[in-house]
């Protein structure tokens, strides 16, 4: 009974969030250059040498169209690998001058002590670093023999800062699913406070590599692992917001599933396209900062993101959980969009 009330209230909460569609979180795909050549490239971020880095001034012009900043509005620099740019500190300082906070998602390769200090000096407030397993499995996914050592050094540095809101993310796959306890122990030993796990969606290079996807049994064991570890409270562990997980929904995160793409999360992509999370099919772009007013687009477009009824097709058409799931994470609609790419709940 209480559970039903909570779920009903959460649905109403989501409806009110959609009506408000307050921009809290903005990705900036500041570069598509990368210093790694990961096996899952193109799944959650992409490497593409066809594009030049976007000039800071172009991005700031888009930022300056925002009329009302929500409290704790954060700009998240992503890529490619954002640390390939030597001027992100400059952009960070410009954002702070405007009263905005900023953060970086990084593979950790270039995150040395000098860069750590220079980023903190420029007002960096949050950081996510990817660690995808113990040494062999991490280097396998990252396709680089030295990546593990570098990322561990980066994690050690980041964990020394009380200022940074820092977490580690891990793409769970066939190579590292049996190492999760050891990875957790490693992170705890490095003083990491927060760990987020996600799976690899079958897009980009991940389509053709069966080792990157979990079997249904492995996915369930991942949910069991997260829910069990959350009880232990050694580390703030959670499943990412990538999808609706049915009965595990209250157990693997702090809150029920809510894909906020286009509701609270926007992006400026490498070519100036305006969208939500960078891993969303680029056909969903709503405008371009070089031809449109960014904030005007945010306020008045984004209809496919704010009304998800169109996802009621394919296996979602007759699903009894549609009200809570609403077509799963938006990034699960790629290509012909006739069906959701992944249904986590059915695993």
């Amino acid at each position, binding site marked *: 009974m209480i559970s039903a009330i*909570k*779920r009903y*209230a*959460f649905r*109403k*909460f989501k409806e*009110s*969030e959609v*009506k*408000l569609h307050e921009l*809290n*979180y903005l*990705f900036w795909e500041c570069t598509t250059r990368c210093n790694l050549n990961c096996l899952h490239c193109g799944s*959650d*971020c992409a490497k593409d040498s066809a594009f030049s880095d976007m000039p800071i001034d172009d991005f700031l012009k888009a930022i300056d169209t925002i009329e009302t900043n929500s409290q*704790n509005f*954060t700009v*998240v620099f*992503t890529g490619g690998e954002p640390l390939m740019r030597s001027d992100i500190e400059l952009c960070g300082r410009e954002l*702070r001058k405007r009263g905005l*906070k*900023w*953060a*970086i*998602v990084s593979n950790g390769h270039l995150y040395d*002590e000098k860069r*750590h*200090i220079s980023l*903190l*000096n*420029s*007002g960096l*407030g*949050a*950081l*996510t670093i990817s660690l995808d397993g113990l040494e062999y499995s991490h280097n396998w996914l990252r396709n680089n023999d030295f990546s593990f050592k570098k990322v561990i050094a980066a994690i050690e540095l980041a964990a*020394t*800062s*009380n*200022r940074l*809101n820092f*977490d580690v*993310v891990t793409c769970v796959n066939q190579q590292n699913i049996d190492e999760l306890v050891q990875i957790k122990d490693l992170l705890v030993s490095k003083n990491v406070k*927060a760990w*987020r796990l*996600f799976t690899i969606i079958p897009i980009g290079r991940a389509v053709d590599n069966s080792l990157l996807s979990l079997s249904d049994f492995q996915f369930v064991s991942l949910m069991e692992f997260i829910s069990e570890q959350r009880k232990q409270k050694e580390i703030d562990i959670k499943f*990412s*917001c990538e999808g609706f997980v049915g009965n595990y929904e209250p157990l693997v995160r*702090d*809150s*029920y599933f*809510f894909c*906020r793409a286009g509701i*609270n*999360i926007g992006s400026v992509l490498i070519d100036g396209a305006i969208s939500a*999370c*960078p*891993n969303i099919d680029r056909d969903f772009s709503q405008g371009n900062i070089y031809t449109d007013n960014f904030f005007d687009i945010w306020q008045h477009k984004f209809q496919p993101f704010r009304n998800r009824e169109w996802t009621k097709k394919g296996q979602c058409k007759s699903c009894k959980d549609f009200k809570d799931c609403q077509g799963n*994470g938006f*990034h699960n609609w790629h290509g012909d969009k006739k069906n959701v790419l992944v249904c986590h709940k059915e695993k």
Partner: protein
Amino acid sequence: MKQKWIRRIIGGLSFTSALFIFQACYGTPQDFGQDLLIEGQVKSKSTGLPINGIKVSVVDNEQYEITNEEGKFSFYSEMLEDIVLSFQDVDSISNGLYMTKDTMLNYTDSKVYVDIVLEEMK
């Protein structure tokens, strides 16, 4: 405004924590931290001129910045109850040699400006 109150009430009824704290699947956590913008200028006591190459650091913290040609520095640091800044000449005798000086910051805002005068070593 009314919509925001409705949001708070309904959100509270669902009894889930972190309703207004979220992160995108592949993004970072949101930043709810507080920091302090520390800016200022370092000058020579004897000449009154700006000094470059002075290391400005927060005591008991890894962060530092080196003053520029105008003797200026600017960096963000974790907001603590007591912050002691240390000014240290680290470029040897290239533009004079100055004595190290520590100073406790007094601040009430999220930024503070510090003018520092360093004495030359005899």
